[in-house]
């Protein structure tokens, strides 16, 4: 059962090949046994999962079951779920029981999905290796010495190790696509505004977007459908019709204009990954797509731009964690200042503090114009670059990451090197564009990712391209040996 995709599970459940309870039990057992090695989960919610699965079985029997009924998934621990511990990977929220459901959680529950647990992540989604989690690093199922990527490392590792067929995730600068690439799974970051941010603990509000990690583009389409759509509780969600992503998957690629981003094929890119990409592009060309070189001259500025905008927003978003109403509170505060300083000092980890400090600095009087304002201007230039590119091509394709997974601890003392891991993914966040990463080969036995970026609300097209590629390749079916 664990090797089946969401699409296969949907059929298996409806055909009563296995019950939702049996399926849930089997996957919970896998999760439990994989947990010591991978540490992919922060909370395993066996009891609630089994109860939900029993209800799913009733609905399946009664014949009124919505599309995902009985399908087991996991949520990144950034999504608030009523009555469930929601930590955001932080000591600050290590005992926080959310009193309410995020829109993503509510909609997937309404679609029938059974939640097995909450996955590990970088603290407050700040990290590219899952090493900043208060609950310890997640290990890459392909090699336990390596990082799974981040910040959605727990979700990516869980899908790669076949612990769940799909998991929710979020992407602020690459946090879905980068771990998808490093763990060899399919990950979609939708258009900013496509999926509601309500109940998703904010890191950088203008960049954060919820999405899906799964094995196949088809499975991503199946989960995205119920997740997407306008939410009156999120003013930045967009009132734009949600297409039938699944129906669009098989559209032929004939006439598809693919842009190859000059800036993506740069010196930092591992030549072995580049070779895999070229092979994949040939395959797409064989299906009728055309390839054109395009340039986004401002794109090389995305990392510095991002590392002004994202910390600025995070410094404000994380001000609410003050020890007054919820979250970690220091013991015996002497006075208000002490309460703030020690609660925050004890509750936040080093990377979160670094970004709060950076963000506070760039918004300060006398520095705002030079940093924050300038970064916003560059951001607009980058968005304009993308828009110009999409006047001549339908999608842009390039690598997701410059290298395959690196060793745990290798970059922890050098934040700038760590930040450069997101060099190919950040642009889409700054421009609010959708992007998908799919497995496109192995380098030294480790997965590499191919990234497809499209115009706003082109998720159906991106999943279509990814699906057609996956129909002609088997990289997405490769499974780490220990988890077959």
């Amino acid at each position, binding site marked *: 059962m664990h090797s089946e995709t969401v699409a296969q599970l949907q059929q298996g459940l409806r055909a009563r090949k296995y019950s939702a309870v049996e399926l849930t039990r089997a996957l919970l057992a896998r999760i439990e046994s994989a947990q010591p090695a991978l540490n992919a989960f922060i909370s395993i919610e066996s009891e609630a999962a089994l109860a939900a699965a029993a209800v799913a079985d009733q609905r399946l029997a009664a014949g009124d079951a919505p599309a995902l009924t009985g399908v087991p998934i996991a949520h990144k621990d950034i*999504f*608030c779920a009523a009555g469930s511990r*929601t930590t*955001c990977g932080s000591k600050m*929220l290590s005992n*926080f029981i*959310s*009193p*309410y459901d*995020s829109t993503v959680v509510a909609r997937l529950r309404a679609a029938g999905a059974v939640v097995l647990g909450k996955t590990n992540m970088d603290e407050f989604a700040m990290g590219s290796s899952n090493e900043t989690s208060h609950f310890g690093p997640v290990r890459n199922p392909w090699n336990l010495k390596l990082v799974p990527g981040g910040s959605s490392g727990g979700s990516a590792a869980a899908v790669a190790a076949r612990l769940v067929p799909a998991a929710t995730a979020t992407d602020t600068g690459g946090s879905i696509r980068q771990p998808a690439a490093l763990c060899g799974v399919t990950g979609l970051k939708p258009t900013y505004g496509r999926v509601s*941010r*309500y*109940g*998703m*603990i*904010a890191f*950088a*509000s*203008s960049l954060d977007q919820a999405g899906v990690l799964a094995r196949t583009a088809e499975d991503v389409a199946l989960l995205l459908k119920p997740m997407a759509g306008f939410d*009156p*509780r*999120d*003013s*930045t969600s967009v009132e734009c019709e949600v297409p039938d992503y699944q129906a669009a998957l098989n559209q032929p690629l004939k006439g598809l204009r693919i842009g190859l981003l000059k800036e993506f094929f740069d010196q930092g890119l591992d030549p072995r990954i580049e070779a895999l990409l070229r092979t994949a592009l040939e395959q797409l060309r064989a299906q009728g797509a055309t390839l054109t070189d395009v340039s986004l001259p401002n794109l090389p500025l995305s990392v510095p731009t991002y590392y002004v905008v994202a910390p*600025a*927003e995070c*410094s*404000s978003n*994380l*001000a*609410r*964690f*003050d020890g*007054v*109403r*919820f*979250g970690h509170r220091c013991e015996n505060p002497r006075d*208000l200042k002490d309460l*703030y300083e020690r609660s925050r000092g004890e509750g936040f980890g080093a990377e979160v503090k670094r970004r709060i400090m950076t963000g*506070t600095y760039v*918004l*300060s*009087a006398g520095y*705002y114009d030079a940093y*924050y304002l300038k970064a916003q201007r560059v951001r607009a230039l980058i968005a304009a670059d993308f828009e110009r590119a999409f006047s001549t091509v339908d999608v842009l394709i390039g690598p997701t990451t410059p290298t395959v997974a690196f060793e745990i601890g290798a970059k922890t003392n050098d934040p700038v090197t760590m930040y450069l891991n997101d060099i190919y993914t950040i642009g889409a966040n700054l421009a609010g564009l959708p992007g998908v990463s799919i497995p496109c080969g192995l380098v030294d036995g480790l997965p590499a990712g191919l990234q497809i970026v499209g115009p706003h609300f082109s998720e159906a097209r991106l999943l279509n391209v990814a699906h057609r590629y996956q129909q002609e390749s088997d990289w997405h079916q490769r499974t780490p040996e220990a988890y077959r």
Partner: protein
Amino acid sequence: MAWETVIGLEIHAQLATRSKIFSGSATAFGAAPNAQANLVDLGYPGVLPVLNGAAVRMAVMFGLAIGARIAQRSVFARKNYFYPDLPKGYQISQYELPIVAGGQMDIVLEDGSAKRVGITRAHLEEDAGKSLHEGLPGQSGIDLNRAGTPLIEIVSEPDMRSAKEAVAYMKKVHTLVRYLRICDGNMQEGSFRCDANVSVRQVGSEKLGTRAEIKNINSFRFVEKAINYEVARQIEVLEGGGKVVQETRLYDPDRAETRSMRSKEEANDYRYFPDPDLLPVEIDNAYIEGIRAQLPELPDQKAQRFATQYGLSHYDALVLTASSELADYFEQVVQKLGGEPKLAANWVSGDLSGFLNRDGLEITHSRVDAAALAGLLARVRDNTISGKIAKDVFEAMWQDQQSADAIIAARGLQQITDDGPIEQAIAAVMAANPAQLADYRSGKDKLFGFFVGQVMKATQGKANPARLNELLKKLLSG
């Protein structure tokens, strides 16, 4: 040395929306602590603000009423600072692009002179909660019922030159927001309050002096006292050779003084930036014109109309239009009475207002309604009772809430207009006061008043004064 005072006000008016500016919680005053604070108001992880359209509408109404520009695109910004009553660690406000900019307000001073006060801007923002200390020894409580209540902050130019001007301006803004029904104006509950920026400079100087900002003053009387105290303090500092420090001060009404809260050096760097959770507020001309078309008659327009339509003095017109409810009351009296606007004006701004003030009642809770007052004035007009008796009848009406006619009939207060009974009363008074009569007849004209008083006393004040005068003159002269 002659000093000139320079004052600018920042008025915070709580908008009368049913729910909060960014959440669905109710805004009613007086609920149990935190009963009206939902997860958004509490700043829970993951929650998001959603703008209340009613607040935008009210801000636009205010902008149109002061002749300001309405921004077709305005932006909410975060004002970042830590305080326990500020759940998110930032207040959502407007900074660089406020919804209203560049208006004015005309005020009339006590000496009758007019003055125009510029309004720099008015922006929307959310209120903070409040800290509670009573009954919590060694601890502080937080009540977030007020957190997220919509406010409009109205920032004036430094155009006022005395505390009296500042009060006149604040009263005028108070009148306007209540006319527009966008604020209940309740100052005790904090619905309408102000910060005063006060500085002094030598007469003739162009340069502004260093200012102090007096925070959170919640009555007209305190505004005047706080400013006057602060002006005297600053002049004393300057004349003593010192320098005024730029700082935030607090007015203590118990001691009638201002005290330093924090200096400029201690001031927060609020790190304003556009709130990424909220889209810019974009409104089009049709929306603005739709609101303009529905604006009620404004105080200045109404006062102008009262002066021309009812032939009232400008002063009377201003007094009667101080609130739209008072103006409505006056117009109802005139309508029911079928005229006599001056008589109605005198009564509404005189006796009626006196009783309202005495009992601390709003006009809408008057114990004598407009129809009842018109009933009383009708009896004055047709000489059933004199103006003097009418005052007693009014008091009785206020007490018993009966009609004027019922009270007049029950107490037999109808005016005596027939000559016979008045002549009889005069004759009796003359007979009882032979000495005074003799003096009068020998030339002491001043005693006429004595006889009027005696006859009035004998008739219990009911003799028609005009008839009494005439008959008394005739009979006294013999």
